């Protein structure tokens, strides 16, 4: 048997110049987790400031810079690349029975482009910070004296990285599937990544262009969105949300893909409907392009437009509900093992359903006028994007840990930290729903006395969440070194990545496999499943 991918070959150089999708996935893992920690620190500064009604630890200008950094880092440095670039990179080719992605060097380039984008974005922090919020709304963003230029250039570069990865995933899914791997046999995580890649490919360039128009104004005033020159700032919002609303699905779709794998593996059962989930993924990706207007109900939009955008937004809820019911139905009469990833699935289910339903609520114009720009919206999008992405990122981190590192984490600590993450998350954001409904606007560094106790709860929750996240990370780091050795398929999964040896070799399969079964054939024994997914 050939040497595993972690050890062959050795040396720092062999890592930095690797074209192995698994190693690139791990390198993304490191930088993405660092981004999560950094974005988390800024979140804690925000919550510390909001601990008391008056000024607490920072002034108003610093507060604006903090929430901007928090948003920019969490959206573009963590959530968008998190699951696709780490876990997608690692398992997508293995799931398809391929030796690597179609363009391994492009994949490595995507990593370094990401790093460059991250450095430039963080350069804005050194250059004094940006105070526009992560949305860079014109005309404020084109006139503020803070460091907008490095921030938007950084985000542009990060977009290039997204596009490179998207091209790689789509091409790989089309051209690199092993013999016998028909489209109906492709694991649902791959379908989710495929849908995500379509959005990345088609939406990201529009964002890149739009924020470059903002950036250009800091060098020479083109003023495309400047009313003084005849421009219309609302057009910025249209173009921005044309990307940034689908971007929510860039975060959610891979999360749903992970969840599908987790539910099937730990219920030891095929999904209640394969097609329902696959088609819903593509449905969300398609409809997601037609909902951006719901961010602008109060920005000057006709009632008809608002109604159409609202109704289209609710279609997303239909596809999401189909998935939710399919996951729940999958558990029905399954043989459920209660491991950490499964627990994260339950948290995900709660956050996703609750966040999704409040999403339908804010997509209704009459309600949105009341909730717009309040903490209700903040709580809603944290539930749906952060709650779902973060719990799923952690589910994936635990689920694929034995395949990535060949060891088992401590299940007891895993379950415990998982509960801590949920408790912290719940405590942070449920009060924010109430605050928003009571009228507290977002992006203020002080607030009236009557909002105090809910803010204290929310801040306390944020620190609990941070503590649990750090413990979860420590648990995994400890397992890297001291965890029990895992077998090749510790969860008894039937998915193809678990059919490889404990640590896959660089080329994944010594001989290209021939697939003669579906990815969720739990009626087969482990040996049969392995036999029907290997070379004849």
């Amino acid at each position, binding site marked *: 048997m050939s040497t595993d991918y972690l050890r062959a070959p050795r040396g720092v150089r062999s890592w930095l110049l690797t074209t192995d999708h698994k190693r690139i996935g791990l390198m993304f893992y490191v930088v993405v987790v660092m981004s999560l920690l950094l974005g988390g620190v800024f979140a804690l500064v925000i919550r510390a400031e909001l601990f008391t009604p008056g000024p607490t630890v920072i002034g108003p200008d610093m507060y604006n810079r903090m929430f901007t950094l928090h948003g920019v880092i969490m959206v573009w440095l963590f959530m968008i690349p998190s699951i696709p670039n780490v876990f997608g990179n690692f398992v997508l*080719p293995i799931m398809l029975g*391929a*030796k*690597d*992605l*179609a*363009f*391994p060097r*492009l994949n490595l380039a995507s990593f370094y482009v990401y790093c460059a984008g991250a450095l430039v974005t963080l350069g804005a922090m050194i250059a004094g910070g940006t105070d526009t919020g992560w949305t860079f709304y014109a005309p404020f963003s084109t006139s503020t004296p803070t460091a907008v230029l490095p921030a938007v250039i950084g985000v542009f570069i990060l977009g290039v990285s997204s*596009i490179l990865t*998207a*091209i*790689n995933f*789509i*091409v*790989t899914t*089309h*051209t*690199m599937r092993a013999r016998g791997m028909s489209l109906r046999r492709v694991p649902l995580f791959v379908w989710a990544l495929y849908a995500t890649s379509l959005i990345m*490919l*088609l*939406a*990201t*360039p*529009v964002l*890149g*262009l*739009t924020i470059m*128009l903002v950036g250009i*104004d800091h060098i*020479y*005033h*083109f*003023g*495309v969105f*400047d009313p003084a*020159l*005849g*421009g*219309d700032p609302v*057009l910025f919002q*249209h*173009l921005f949300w*044309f990307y940034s609303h689908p971007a929510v699905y860039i975060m959610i779709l891979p999360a749903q893909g992970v969840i599908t794998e987790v539910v099937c593996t730990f219920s030891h059962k095929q999904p209640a409907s394969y097609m329902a989930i696959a088609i819903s993924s593509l449905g969300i990706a398609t409809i997601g392009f037609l909902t951006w207007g719901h961010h602008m109900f109060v920005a000057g939009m006709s009632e008809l437009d608002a109604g159409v955008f609202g109704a289209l937004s609710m279609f997303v809820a239909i596809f999401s509900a189909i998935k939710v019911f399919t996951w729940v139905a999958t558990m029905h009469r399954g043989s459920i093992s209660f491991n950490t990833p499964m627990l994260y699935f339950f948290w995900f289910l709660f956050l996703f359903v609750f966040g999704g339903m409040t999403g339908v609520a804010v997509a209704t114009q009459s309600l949105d006028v009341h909730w717009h720009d309040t903490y209700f919206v903040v709580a809603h999008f944290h539930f749906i994007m952060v709650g779902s992405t973060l719990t799923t990122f952690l589910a994936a981190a635990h689920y694929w840990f034995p395949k990535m590192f060949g060891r088992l984490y401590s299940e007891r600590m895993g379950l415990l930290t998982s509960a801590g993450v949920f408790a912290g998350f719940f405590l942070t954001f449920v009060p924010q729903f109430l605050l928003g409904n009571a009228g507290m606007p977002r992006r203020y560094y002080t607030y009236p006395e009557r909002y105090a106790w809910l803010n204290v709860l929310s801040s306390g929750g944020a620190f609990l969440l941070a503590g649990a996240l750090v413990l979860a990370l420590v648990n995994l780091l400890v397992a890297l070194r001291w965890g029990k050795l895992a077998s090749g398929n510790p969860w008894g999964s039937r998915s193809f990545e678990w059919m490889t040896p404990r640590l896959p070799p660089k*080329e994944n399969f010594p001989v*290209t496999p021939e697939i003669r079964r579906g990815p969720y054939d739990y009626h087969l024994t482990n040996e049969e499943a392995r036999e029907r997914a290997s070379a004849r």
Partner: protein
Amino acid sequence: MNAPRLAEQFEDLAKQGQAARLGMWLFLGSELLLFGGLFALYAAYRAMYPAEFAEAVAHNSVAIGTTNTLVLITSSLTVAMSVGAVRADRPRRAGRLLALSVLLGAVFLALKGVEYAAHFRDGILPGEGYRFAELPAAGASLFFTLYYLLTGLHALHVTAGMTLLGWLSWGCLRGRYAAGNDLHVELGGLYWHLVDIVWIFLWPLLYLAHP
């Protein structure tokens, strides 16, 4: 010596070529959306300022715009012929055709420069620098700002395409490509056709569309 290299992740050259072509098409799709944002802005502002846009379009030189269209279409023809030539195993001819395409690209940029210079003399500058007394309205200045953005972004693509074609031309002349090893020339050609197609839409929007 002319056989293309099979990368280790592929089983055969056919699949490898198929993957590369699909990747290029996806990239071109992504590029279209990049221009799409600017086209959307053009549409929105034209709807807001129909009369001013029409007047501003009329001010642009149809002669230069149309000549440039012909130049660019001809360059696409020579690129297409070069792909045919390399497939017919005549790489030197392909190299000369590609060099001609690069030359036509340079002619295009030179004409663009002449046009920009005339605009600058009139005081037609983008954004806040706009000083053109004949067309004073805000709508006209927005048109010219978008004109600079659209043609500027397009010129960047022309420059990138010329670099690419120049490199391919050099490769052809040195005999690096031949029949059976023509994929790179084909992909470079695809990119150049994108540059051409975008211009086919810019030409009416910026030079012809006035009543």
